[in-house]
């Protein structure tokens, strides 16, 4: 198979060849970057959370009667609700908190070490007002010191997550007994994913405090037996209404669902781009199919003469496929460059890692496979040209 002849054949159809090359180039660029984005979304959503996503349920609720929004009526209502929820079969632990892990928003504040306020200040750290039971409800792991007990109620004793303790004191165990702007550190727990858009998603700070008001509602966290999650979920509404009907139960969700919601944007875009890439591959296949079919018909006489001169069917098949491979080869070579250029453009709009070299090559192989599959049938038809029929007009 002469490469020169193949090039000559392509040059005879300059415009069509150029259109094909541009299309193949853009297709590879898009496919490569879509895979990159999907990979990023996958990596982001598979970061460790430090939470039991499947077995932890979060209930977001708010009293509709304003008399119940204020302490002490609020505290009493919460305790009655927790007691009722603990009666449900399958509920292992229940506790209240002012904000749920993984949920956007909530009460955030600055934290710093008073002696080094300028250098140690950390913005937007989630402040969790909770009770002793939250430790079990969220299945936390204690690393240093102790968790909050009943004696810490409404005091300034705080527990930090490990990453925050490291940030403030270099090493987490050094935080014990230290004074920070929020209070005195009595313990350090393992990191949990709190608010993705806070200073750091693993920063968190816990107090044992009553909620004085629930203008923004409050949350009940349940740790449930794994086989009882669905059954517990069904009973929550009724149990809470039995305790107090003047209540708006806004959401009952598993932390798994919240985790999905947190990365919804990235996941959504990755899926959209994958759909678009699949469509692009489809378009490339249609194009390759139609191109091969059309030129097979156009070159019927030429193929017939070749067959009459002794060219085998296999050789004709290889010839048609080679032309397609050559076009695809040139297209994907340009596409490799276009992939990096598109990555740079996308990186100006969204957060995107660098494109690893193997990725566009893998995309090129995929494209080559699709084009070959699409060309196969028209190429097979071309081999069936009878020398007698094709040369009849000569």
């Amino acid at each position, binding site marked *: 198979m002469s490469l020169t002849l193949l090039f000559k054949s392509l040059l005879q159809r300059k415009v069509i060849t150029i*259109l094909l090359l*541009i299309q193949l180039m853009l297709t590879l660029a898009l496919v490569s970057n879509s895979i990159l984005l999907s990979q990023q979304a996958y990596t982001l959503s598979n970061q460790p959370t430090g939470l039991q996503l499947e077995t932890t349920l979060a209930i977001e609720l708010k009293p509709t009667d304003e008399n119940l929004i204020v302490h002490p009526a609020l505290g009493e209502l919460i305790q009655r609700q927790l007691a009722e929820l603990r009666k449900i079969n399958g509920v292992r632990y229940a506790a209240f908190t002012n904000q749920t892990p993984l949920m956007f928003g909530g009460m955030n504040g600055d934290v710093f070490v008073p002696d080094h306020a300028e250098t140690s200040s950390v913005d937007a750290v989630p402040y969790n007002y909770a009770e002793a039971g939250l430790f079990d409800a969220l299945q936390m792991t204690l690393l240093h010191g102790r968790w909050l007990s009943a004696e810490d109620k409404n005091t300034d004793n705080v527990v930090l997550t490990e990453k925050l303790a490291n940030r403030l004191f270099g090493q987490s165990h050094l935080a014990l007994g230290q004074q920070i702007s929020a209070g005195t550190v009595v313990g350090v727990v393992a990191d949990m994913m709190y608010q993705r858009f806070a200073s750091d998603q693993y920063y968190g700070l816990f107090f044992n405090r009553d909620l004085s008001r629930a203008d923004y509602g409050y949350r009940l966290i349940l740790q449930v037996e794994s086989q009882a999650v669905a059954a517990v979920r069904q009973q929550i509404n009724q149990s809470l209404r039995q305790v107090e009907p003047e209540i708006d139960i806004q959401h009952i969700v598993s932390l798994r669902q919240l985790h999905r919601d947190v990365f919804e944007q990235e996941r959504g875009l990755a899926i959209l781009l994958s759909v*678009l890439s699949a469509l692009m591959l489809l378009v490339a296949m249609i194009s390759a199919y*139609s*191109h091969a079919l*059309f030129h097979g018909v156009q070159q019927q006489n030429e193929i017939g003469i070749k067959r009459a001169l002794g060219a085998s069917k296999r050789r004709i098949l290889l010839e048609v496929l080679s032309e397609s491979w050559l076009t695809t080869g040139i297209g994907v070579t340009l596409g490799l460059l276009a992939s990096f250029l598109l990555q740079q453009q996308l990186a100006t709009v969204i957060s995107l890692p660098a494109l690893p070299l193997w990725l566009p090559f893998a995309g090129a192989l995929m494209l080559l496979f699709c084009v070959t599959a699409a060309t196969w049938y028209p190429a097979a038809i071309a081999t069936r040209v009878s020398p007698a029929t094709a040369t009849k007009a000569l």
Partner: protein
Amino acid sequence: MDNLLHVFALAIRNIKRAPLPYLLTVLILSLGLGMFFSNATLYYWLNHDPLPHKSQTLFYPQINATLQPCDSCTEPLRVLSYQDVQKLSSSGIPSAQAAMFQSAGYARLPENTRQSPTPVALRITQRDFFTLFDVPFLHGERWADNSARRELILSKASAERFFGRTNVVGEALQLGNELYTITGVLDDWTMLPRLYDVANGLNSAQSADIYLPWETAYDLGIKSNTTTMSRDSRNYSDNFAVNGREGDFFQAQFWVQLDTADQVSAYRQFMQQLVQSEKEAGRHPRPEGNRLTNILDITEHFNARNRQLDAFALVSLLFLLVCLFNASHLSLNRYLASQYEFGLRRALGASRGQLQQLILADVAVNAAVALLLSLTVAMVAMALINHLLPATRNLTSWSPAMLFAMAATALAASYIVSLYPAIRASFGSLNRQLK
């Protein structure tokens, strides 16, 4: 007329003669256009000017008035305190001005105390809100002034939901534990993008159900349910009527209408003088960070653009480009296949103008089919986008102007796709074509 019918009949006959190449061409064109239309629809609703006749006059002022000293903090907070609003309202320069924030509550008819109340979205604001953003009234009117009053304004949908009718001015509605008199009912009104609430990332959210006076909200301790920040040690859960008004509690947006360049310049000067006098009084410890941002720049100012949609817009444009190249390639094959027919027509005396008529008829038929198919593709794509990115759910409607623009785009795309192939087919050598 007969000639027109004839060329259209020929165009349809051409399709019937070789339906597969035609269908593939139109399919590819429709896929490209459909994905582009779906994205363009979302992009349009997120980025168009919702008040074209007055957007140039609406501004969001900010001052860096936090009382915590910080020499490196040059950027003002996104939201303002009650004190900031009071100071920025005192110039007398704007034609209209209103502070606002979003909140939530529970409403019911006073006589239905046994029924559970309905959750409602609230906008706490001042009387000029309705002037600033051209909010239409169906019944009643805005509040007489900005003082505290137990009066509220309902959206049309809320009036129908609570009362089953819209003319409910003078009726009472219970919100929380308080009774309010309804003084106005709005007509259907949606501002998309909701640029007055971009600071909270709510540019595609629904409008509020109920509008409450600003001062009343502070009296009753109603706070924003979006961004709130406190920068002092006051207890804002207690006595909010005083603490919320006097303390460093930030939750408000504030908009002013400045009709002329002179007003804009005067207001800038006023802000400078205000900060200067505050500094002299020791109430402005941070560096000056005055901002006066036009409503059309506010999304960029708060870095609130939906970057995912921007990225998708770029990619869907590329996809359209690929589809145009592809359809053009297929179209060229199609026209080259009909080159003999073109040659024969020319040999029988058809002018190039008549051949162009045939091609234009073909383009028109292509465009019509491609438009229908691409609208179907766009609807499916928008449903998928809405499912994957729920924040876009309110951005999917098509106005007649948008449909017209889509039809024009489909026609232009069909023409571009057929242009080169048509020239090749009708201007080639007659001898060669007939051979």
